[in-house]
């Protein structure tokens, strides 16, 4: 049931991108997202697409995996598109039909937001597909550790993440076992409407939660008996190291962002472009209808 969500999944192959430092990958992903939000024309999106495509190739990840991740979010995408399309007050009207109004600015916004969402998902998927969850939690811990000064629990957060990762397969197995046990006793998880099916989950979730709490108690005791005393005064088996490759990746990403900034300066965006095409009187008439509405 979760196989279509690429966001947060790891694609275990060995590649140049996989070997990059998780900290660098996190930072660069954030930079990429910021970059995507600065794009103003289609040339910029083409640049980002090219970047993501090449990165996926280098990471030996089939590009369709990234596409699949976007597909999983199609409802949110369509919703974002429609909301922006209809509820954006613009000056250049393209279509008016009853209460439905589509303006040029609205269309522009709708395209922008949808594309941003697409690249946001692709960018983060690219990071999680190439970084094992445990490396990711390590990276997050190191990146956030300066915040320990203001008592931000960076180590605890990473520890929680890695324990959650450790217990996901165990709990899945257990859920499966309980489900089969209930099915053997005549429970029905598959038929009925959503509400009926949600209700059928209760006898599955209750024992699962009870056991999860017991596991948590046991684990806490086992950790304490192995001298766990929080993040202070602790050494690590995994050592993170920024290499030359990390700086190359950072350089390429920086170049992309520089190009995006330049593109914003020199390539006209959709609104200016279309307004340039429209004959003068039509623009005026559109403005006129707009004026009447007001």
């Amino acid at each position, binding site marked *: 049931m979760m196989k279509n969500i690429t966001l947060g999944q790891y694609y275990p192959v060995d590649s140049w991108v996989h070997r990059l430092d998780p900290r660098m990958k996190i930072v660069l992903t954030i930079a990429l997202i910021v970059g995507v939000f600065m794009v103003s024309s289609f040339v910029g999106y083409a640049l980002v697409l090219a970047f993501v495509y090449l990165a996926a190739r280098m990471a030996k990840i089939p590009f369709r995996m990234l596409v699949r991740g976007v597909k999983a979010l199609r409802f949110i995408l369509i919703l974002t598109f429609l909301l922006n399309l209809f509820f954006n007050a613009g000056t250049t009207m393209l279509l008016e039909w009853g209460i439905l109004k589509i303006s040029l600015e609205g269309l522009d916004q709708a395209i922008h937001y949808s594309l941003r969402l697409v690249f946001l998902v692709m960018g983060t998927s690219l990071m999680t597909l190439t970084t094992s969850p445990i490396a990711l939690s390590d990276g997050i811990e190191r990146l956030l550790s300066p915040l320990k000064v203001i008592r931000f629990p960076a180590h605890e957060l990473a520890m929680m993440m890695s324990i959650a990762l450790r217990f996901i397969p165990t709990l899945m197995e257990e859920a499966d076992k309980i489900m089969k046990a209930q099915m053997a006793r005549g429970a029905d998880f598959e038929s009925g409407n959503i509400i009926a099916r949600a209700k059928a989950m209760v006898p599955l979730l209750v024992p699962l939660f009870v056991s999860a709490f017991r596991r948590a108690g046991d684990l806490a005791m086992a950790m304490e*008996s192995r001298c766990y005393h929080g993040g202070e005064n602790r050494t690590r088996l995994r050592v993170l190291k920024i290499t030359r490759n990390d700086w190359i990746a950072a350089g390429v990403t920086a170049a992309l962002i520089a190009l995006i900034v330049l593109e914003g300066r020199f390539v006209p965006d959709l609104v200016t472009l279309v307004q340039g095409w429209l004959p003068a009187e039509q623009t005026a008439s559109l403005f006129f209808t707009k004026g009447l509405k007001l």
Partner: protein
Amino acid sequence: MKEIITVKDVTFTYEEATEPALRGVSLAVQEGEFLAVLGHNGSGKSTLAKLLNALYIPTEGHVTVCGFDTQDDDHLWDVRQQAGMIFQNPDNQIVATVVREDVAFGLENLAVPHAEMVQRIDEALAAVRMTDFAAAPPHMLSGGQKQRVAIAGILAMQPRVIIADEATAMLDPSGRREVLSTIRRLNREKGITVVWITHYMEEAAQADRVIVMNHGQVALTGAPREIFEQTAQLREMHLDVPHMTDLAQDLRAEGMPLPAGILTVDEMTEEVCKLLCQSR
């Protein structure tokens, strides 16, 4: 021989409990011995285990591990490093997503330098014969293998005592053999003291000395053979007697002159064969 663990007049009452789980327990564990602690459910044997690792602190009395009193907060980590503990549920004591990293967990907590850590992990995994699984995710292992990983995690911390709190209770017979033989080998070869808490008679029979717990008190103590001959008393404490000891007693009652102290099928076979040879 030196005493490595001393339990002196210990009483322990759980919070919100009216009756103490342990009352006036005194015992000593000698360095290098394999001590089995037997008892049915609720006899206080698990409570005793947790007192030996400073997970619980006695309500009354004192527990001393390797010269450190468990009540002494300054030496809490010394106690836990010296007396490693393996728990019942193999899943609930593995912290990391990779075997190697789980073995590292205790070392990370003790702030062992990286180079030494790597070396100690390799040694510990080799000692429990899990080197081939160093990079495996724990959920892909069998119960017995998980318990061996847990043992490696303790072993890497270089303890003098290993306390196993019903470490085989959730395993299948082959997993049980695998774990017990690993522990026995460590006891023999590395001289690590073992406190083996169990309700399996067959396992207790392999120990140097057995303590039987009942109602929070030490009921019997002695060599396995001495203990298992006291069938009536064991039954009273809801403990099973090893099948062969049981059978030997029945046969003796029927007039077969079998000697006392038979625990295993092999011993029984040998004694019966001897009798057969004599009768010819």
